[in-house]
């Protein structure tokens, strides 16, 4: 063997069928039509392919950082990407397919979707189309989650590139195609700006495998060969460049005005989730704290189990469980509600410990003084202990709220449109990581700094008002 220079190529294998994905029979190996295509391209270039598993949303920035040499992942040549990277010749003409639930009689085309939420992959030609047409949509990280949420009625339709639709949805009895494939777009290979030499090599290799039928063979094996591809092959065989091919679908640009509106909506969702889950945590924390410190033995164990479970496992895992796990027993909540409930249940464990510490901080004598005035335990708790414990608990609760506010960002994992998701998707779509990063951070700080300040002030006031208890105990 002669020493071959490796050709690093990046793609997202998670939910990546049929492009590139882990072989179900052997998860250490990757398969897919693009995997086979890259093997053919690399062979034509005399290089050794080296796959770098990455994340779809950050492919462009990873390419710019030099994590790999080319992006081969069904990449569409959009105008805003063209400002960041180079494109090779097109190697595939894709179309879009709208999918709905089998029983759905209302949605026949995208035009019927103005009042329905449509799922799609974030930062794709499909998501730009939805954005352009003013159709409410949710960006997913992989097609599997999108089609699952469609089945669970969390969304009403999914718009996806035909290759993914063909692999994930076409054989699902619960889903059906709404209308025919429509629009046309191109898949190209992405390269770093300045890599003109590599681009020339890649273009030549694409021409070669298009013309000699290698690509045709691969696409036919994957059932992706169709009329559109014939056109592309004919051009290559005639020695024509595919560069002048530019379909509507892949020339849609990033819309800043729309992006800012979506960012503002994400901010509202973040605030809503934070306040909602804090309310749940505060309400649920009290019975937990009481059960753990004053309940019967079985109740104590139960509450301790709850607290240890929610504090001892990552909140991210809890959210994924609630979102993907619960539907299997018939409980499918929408994403925002899952985040709200999940964070609420999680923080209830923390609040219960804050309450418990606060209750224990109240001297035993306060109970006895209340009893001595004829109060029952319930009355003594409500009128004497609780108001005092609340003052003790307020500063740590405020601190927890600041943490909770930041923790809402885990909702990104279940495709809730909150600030972290918005940042990731909008920054990836626009390339404005710095600008949007500053804007999003400013918003988080605008919420958390005043809260932290409030916590410190409460703490100071509390230590002042507490001297009595200390004196009396001494």
């Amino acid at each position, binding site marked *: 063997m002669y020493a071959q220079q490796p050709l690093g190529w990046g793609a997202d294998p998670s939910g990546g069928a049929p492009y590139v994905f882990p072989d179900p029979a052997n998860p250490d190996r990757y398969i897919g039509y693009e995997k086979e295509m890259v093997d053919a391209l690399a062979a034509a270039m005399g290089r050794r392919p080296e796959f770098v598993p990455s994340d779809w949303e950050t492919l462009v920035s990873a390419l710019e950082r030099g994590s790999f040499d080319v992006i081969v992942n069904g990449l569409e040549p959009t105008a805003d990407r063209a400002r960041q990277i180079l494109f090779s010749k097109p190697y595939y003409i894709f179309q879009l397919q709208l999918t709905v639930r089998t029983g759905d009689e209302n949605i026949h085309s995208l035009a019927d979707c103005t009042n329905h939420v449509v799922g799609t992959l974030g930062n794709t030609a499909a998501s730009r189309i939805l954005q352009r047409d003013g159709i409410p949509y949710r960006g997913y990280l992989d097609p599997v989650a999108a089609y699952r949420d469609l089945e669970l009625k969390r969304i009403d339709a999914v718009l996806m590139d035909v290759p993914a639709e063909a692999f994930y949805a076409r054989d699902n009895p619960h889903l059906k195609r709404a209308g025919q494939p429509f629009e046309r777009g191109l898949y190209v290979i992405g390269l770093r700006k300045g890599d003109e030499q590599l681009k020339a090599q890649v273009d030549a290799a694409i021409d070669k495998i298009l013309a000699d039928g290698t690509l045709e063979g691969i696409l036919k094996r994957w059932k992706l060969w169709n009329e559109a591809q014939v056109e592309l092959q004919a051009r290559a065989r005639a020695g024509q460049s595919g560069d002048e091919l530019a379909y509507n679908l892949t020339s849609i640009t990033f819309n800043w005005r729309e992006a800012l509106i979506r960012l503002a909506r994400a901010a509202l969702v973040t605030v809503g989730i934070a306040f909602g889950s804090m309310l749940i945590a505060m309400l649920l924390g009290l019975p937990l704290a009481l059960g753990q410190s004053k309940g019967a033995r079985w109740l104590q164990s139960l509450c301790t189990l709850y607290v240890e479970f929610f504090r001892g496992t990552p909140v991210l895992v809890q959210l994924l469980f609630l979102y993907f796990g619960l539907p299997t027993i018939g409980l499918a909540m929408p994403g925002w509600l899952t985040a709200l409930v999940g964070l609420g249940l999680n923080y209830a464990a923390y609040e219960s410990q804050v309450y418990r510490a606060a209750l224990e901080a109240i001297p035993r*004598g306060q109970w006895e*003084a209340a009893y001595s*005035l004829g109060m029952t335990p319930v009355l003594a708790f409500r009128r004497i202990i609780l108001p005092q414990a609340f003052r003790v608990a307020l500063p740590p609760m405020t601190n927890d709220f600041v943490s909770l506010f930041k923790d809402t960002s885990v909702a990104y994992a279940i495709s809730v449109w909150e600030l972290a998701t918005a940042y990731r998707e909008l920054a990836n779509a626009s390339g404005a990581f710095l600008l949007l990063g500053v804007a999003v951070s400013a918003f988080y700080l605008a919420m958390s700094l005043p809260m932290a300040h409030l916590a410190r002030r409460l703490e100071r006031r509390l230590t002042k008002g507490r001297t009595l208890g200390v004196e009396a105990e001494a």
Partner: protein
Amino acid sequence: MISVEGLEKRKGGKQILRNVSFRVEAGSVLGIMGASGSGKTTLLRCLNGLEQIDTGWLQCASVTLDSGLPTKSYRRRANELRRQVGTVFQHLYLFPHLSVLGNIIEAPVHVLKRMRAEVETEAHELLRLVGLADAASRYPESLSGGEQQRVAIARALAMHPKILLFDEPTSALDPKRSTDLRSLLRSFVTRGHTLVVVSHAIGFLQGLSDNLLYMEGGEVVEQGPTAQILQSPRDPRTLDFIMHDSAGASA
């Protein structure tokens, strides 16, 4: 008004009180004296039902607590008892989140469900009685130790208890204030209250109590009229305590 018969109390395997019996007539003052660790504070806590007794029985006002009662009904009766027995703890335990007025009206309003306006008028009278007429809107933390104690007394009086229990009322007071407190407590007798005062300060009990009870090691060593106990104690241990105290006082 108070009867205690064969009362015993154990805590953590240790005998705290042993065969305690005594009576207190209505409108009289009983002083309970003894060194620290003699069990006198525990006895007081038994009298208001905070501690459940292991043997014997006790009666305060109209409520009887018998060691044979199941815990649940013991607690219910103890709660009933405490509506008739006011307690002023050594550490007072005022409610720091409530104003002076709030401390006083809390129980009458929420336990007895009396009208707030009526209770407030009465609370102001009680504050005048204890010499704190202007303190109603202040908070406990801003008061001196002596002032806090008088608020605690007013708080107990607001429930119209037949019996008042005091635990070491002079522990935080200088001699002048002790004398003032003694006349205040004495005036409660003329208002119809029965008092039990636990203290190790014989001088304070001397001018206050009608009867004295001396405790040591959880047992009643001697009891009788104040003058008789202080001037001619029958038990050498009582004499020893009295001699020790006066020696300490003169030092």
